[in-house]
């Protein structure tokens, strides 16, 4: 009699080596898995808790400056190279890989106001309170590394500098916005709109001939360096400190404002802000976009750094340490992994862009697990417990109290307007969108009035 026996090929289930994982055979029939959603929910809950447990964003601080770090620039060609200028006029070059300072030069007397690296990564331009523009080599091993390649003595004080993304051209700002060519000692072109001094200037990384500046008269002005006149300006209720362009969306920029907010604009429509990013408890001093254009980082006078998704109004994360004082400058590293912050208390700090991300290469299994956890958190993001845990942050008492106070004020303001509206003639107190509320004027509108 022939006896039929179930037989399997051992190759299917026996491990080749001890390190291999056991192959598990599964029946994916949903009828056999009645508790899929609850089990995934539990996993999501665990994932979000673990995310918080492992959220340790601080990596290192680079100390060496003897005064507050007031400006930074990252090399456009090298990932591990960072330049920082301090309030005592010192310029330092850092190797981020081993966190060493590889060069320290007394570049200016007084503040180093601005630093910018050229598109080819060979030259760094610095401007300082001593009314000079200095060119420095980025090669830390060259003989003339302690001396500037070139020095230009200007007539007035410069407050900022930024390099063109594809040409040997840079822009400085001060009394006017000047466009310089590397080979010439006189500005190629200068723009002036109004009498107030210009705080910052930034070139557009995509449409390389566009640039933008913030002016002390609360306005943000757009330029095309090929044109003889500025393009347009928008005036906000308070002064903007810095503006950053989105590196993936040619017409989008975000302005860091004194009113604790950040405003994202489409430069083609300046009547409305695309988004108002609120969360800081004090003036925002610097902003920088992630190279993916999906997020940006902002440093504030409230001694904290916040990360905002570029299409959200609330921050995703907040970084702070006890010792970190007013943050003057922030940068997002070119590989989208790290943040750099320079603050008042002489330190440059390195942070992880995603707080709980594991550093270094991951094994495939780790990577899969991380991705799965991320997706679970996204999937159950609306569930109250998960939302609560993922949003929970500990912030310094000062920030906590200020935010609370701000909330109260805002609520009171809202109530007041509501009362005003209910007790006045219909239409007398119109609803104004938050996105338009903070915009005083746009030049087009002004001209129409004139």
């Amino acid at each position, binding site marked *: 009699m022939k006896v039929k026996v179930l037989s399997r090929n051992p190759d299917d289930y026996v491990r080749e080596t001890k390190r291999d994982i056991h192959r598990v055979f*599964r029946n*994916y029939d*949903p009828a056999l*898995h009645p508790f*899929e*959603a609850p*089990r*995934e*929910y539990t*996993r999501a809950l665990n994932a979000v808790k673990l995310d918080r447990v492992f959220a340790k964003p601080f990596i290192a601080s680079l100390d060496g400056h003897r005064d507050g770090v007031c400006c930074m620039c990252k090399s*456009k*060609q090298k*990932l591990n190279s960072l330049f920082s200028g301090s309030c005592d006029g010192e310029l330092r070059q850092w190797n981020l890989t081993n966190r060493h300072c590889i060069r320290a030069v007394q570049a200016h007397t007084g503040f180093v106001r601005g630093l910018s690296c050229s598109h080819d990564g060979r030259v760094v331009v610095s401007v300082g309170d001593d009314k000079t523009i200095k060119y420095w080599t980025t090669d830390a091993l060259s003989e003339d590394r302690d001396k500037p390649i070139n020095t230009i003595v200007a007539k007035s004080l410069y407050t900022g500098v930024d390099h063109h*993304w594809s040409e040997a051209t840079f822009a400085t700002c001060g009394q006017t916005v000047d466009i310089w060519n590397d080979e010439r000692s006189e500005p190629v072109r200068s723009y002036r709109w109004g009498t107030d001094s210009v705080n910052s200037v930034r070139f557009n*990384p*995509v*449409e390389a001939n*566009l640039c933008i500046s913030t002016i002390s008269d609360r306005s943000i002005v*757009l330029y*095309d360096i090929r*044109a*003889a*006149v*500025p*393009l*347009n300006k928008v005036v906000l209720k308070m002064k903007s400190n810095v503006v950053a362009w989105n*590196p*993936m*969306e*040619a*017409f*989008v920029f975000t302005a860091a404002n004194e009113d604790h907010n950040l405003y994202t604009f489409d*430069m*083609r429509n300046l009547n409305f802000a695309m988004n108002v990013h609120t969360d800081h408890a004090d003036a925002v001093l610097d902003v920088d976009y992630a*190279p*993916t*254009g*999906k997020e940006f980082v902002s440093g504030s006078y409230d001694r904290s750094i916040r990360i905002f998704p570029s*299409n959200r109004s609330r921050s995703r994360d907040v970084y702070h340490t006890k010792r970190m004082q007013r943050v003057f400058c922030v940068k997002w590293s*070119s*590989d*989208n*992994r790290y943040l750099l912050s320079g603050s008042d208390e002489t330190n440059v700090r390195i942070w992880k862009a995603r707080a709980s991300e594991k550093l270094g*290469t991951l094994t495939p299994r780790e990577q*899969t697990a991380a*991705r*799965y956890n*991320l*997706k*679970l958190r996204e*999937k*159950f*993001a*609306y*569930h*109250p*417990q998960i939302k609560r845990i993922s949003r929970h942050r500990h912030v310094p008492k000062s920030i906590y109290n200020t935010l609370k106070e701000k909330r109260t004020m805002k609520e009171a303001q809202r109530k007041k307007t509501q009362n005003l509206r209910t007790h006045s003639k219909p239409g007398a107190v119109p609803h104004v969108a938050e996105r338009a509320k903070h915009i005083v004027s746009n*030049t*087009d509108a002004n*001209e129409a009035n004139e």
Partner: protein
Amino acid sequence: MTKGNPQEYVKQLKEEVNDIELSDHELDDDKHTELLSSIGVNVDVDKKHKNKQVRTEASRDVSVFSLLGASGDGTQKKVNLNQLLKGVKESANVNVLKKQLSRVNRPQRHLEAPLPKPVAERLQRKVEYQKTSEKLAKWDPVVQSHRKADHISFPLTQPPLYIKTVDKQLSRIGKKLTPLEEEIYALLRGNKCVERPDHDLTLQEEEILASVSLEEAQERRAELQKHRALMSYHESKSKRQKKIKSKKYHRMLRKRKMKEDATKEDDDEAEDAVKRAERMRAEERASLRHRTGSKWARSRAIMAKHDKDSKELLNEQLQKHRELVTKPLPDSVESDDGVDTNVNANGEDNLYSSENFEIASSNPWLRTNVENKNGKQIVENGGDPVGNKETASDNNEEHKMDSECENESNLDEPKQKLRKWLSSEDTDLDVSKHALDISSSDAMVKFKEAYDKLQHEISSEKKTAPDRAENVFQDLKEETIEEDKEMQDGLNEQCNNAEYDVTVRSQPLQILSRSSGESKSMKVDTDATKSFSSATKVSEQEAEFVAEEDLEMGSEARQQMTIEQAFADDDVVAEFAKSKREIVEEGKPKVVSLALPGWGEWGGVGINPSKRKRRRFRVKPVPMKPRLDQKLGHVIINEKRDVHIAKHQVNDIPFPYTNKEQFERTVAQPIGSTWNTQSAFNSFVKPKVDTVMGSIIPPMNSDEALGELKKASKWKEDRKKLKRKHEHKNKLEKLKMFL
């Protein structure tokens, strides 16, 4: 106009005359001027001279007015400067003077004052801004696609991966090769079969293509394809057939093959021979003429004791009988199974063959059997008003069961029918029936049905045919429900009869098959009875079903009822009250008995805990707090809400979702590898933004980002071009064919 008014007529005439006179006068003037011109006097000049004032003497008081040329009749224009200049004789200065004059004469033009600087700048700014904004619009599609993308990998442009080919490698190295390498290289280079980088086909392939015309190749390919398909059909068919376990089927197959072969050899003669043999066999089986039953045989049997010849004769006759009775086809000899012979004896086999093969047409009693069945179906359908309402599948099932029943019941009929057929071959009825077979008109069919039924009744009730045939015909025409019921009864009866017949018949069968094995024949017997009983059951059920339908049929009251039912739900208040009552009832605590069987007493199947015990362990419910909605008539407050669970539940539908179901579905869909295949899991957990570790992500580059869009469109263009090229090539080839 002129009839009754002569005065007016005269007046008119006068007027006409005047006109003519006037025209005469004009004519005179013309003639006068002609005359003058012929003499040589210029009439016009003369006229001008007449009007012009000419200064004849120099005087101090020259009228300014006359100088300006205010002529007497006022027609003359003012004197122009140029006209004055005409009079001046040509000199070197005149041209200069003219120029100066023309400049003075031109309409005066002057530059506008420049705009104030701020206004000018504002305008400039406006224009520049507009231009830039328009230029930036080219980024919109790229930006939108990036925002919407489920997955983006940065840096956007990653260096392409490519495989180094041997050719490139060799050309790059350029150094001397080993002999083996050279040999291989020569093989690779010189060979016609080697793929070429810039061509789709190899040289050899191209040659082959060139040698065979397109149509020829297509034809051949089609032929080959067809052949292959046929082969595969045949193969699969034979495989399937081989798998079939039924012996009967294989026997049939063999038979059919034999028949086919026979027909191939010599059609008519073989067929005739077969038919004749069949008929002879049938006659023999029906009449048993050559067996021992006849008078002559009986007498021979008596004589056999004494007479050897008679014994031999008897034997001969028996031999002949055997010969006649044995089937002419050789496969019946081959069959060695007891079951098979039994089945053959049952006559099922005959039926089977008659239904499927040509014998059916030659064997009228077998054909009538089939027709009879059909006829019955028609009668049923016609007579049953409910039958039309039933679904097709129901109908089919019923018929199937019916036909089965018929099959079984007819198992032993063949012989009787055969006998009848043989005996009454020359009766009128039979003749008419043959006629029926040929014709196919409706009336004839009906008649046939009637006849079949009649025959059936004859076989069951043993009554005379002719006068009843008419009655049945009439009845059929009327097709009443009663008749239908009758039909049902008849069916039942028939089935019962069949059962009876089979049981009766199984006795000789048993005897016959005793030699081959009793158990098998028994089996067959029981099987047969079983099937019949089931058939009868089915028919009974049918009858019941019909009755029910009849009861339900055609009542208006029922329709009214349904309308009432349809609108019964409209009483919302009552409905709400009811549902609330139900919820309240459900929420009330219930009495629970905690008595365990077998504790302190005997337990087991059929023994319940004693009454005392049950009473003792009965847990009375604690009276609950009054419901929150007890005094609220129109409110149901859910008291079952669990705060501990609610803590984890989503209260509002989050933004991208529009309804609850949508959101619930996405949450219910698991993404883990526990519930999904690895590939699905991988696609689920793919992150939105992916970066390459340690690589700088440069800002978007206009050439690359916009180039991609262009590339996509270019690819489409290229494809179109290629297609056009291909078409062109095809045309050329066709042309070549014709040439």
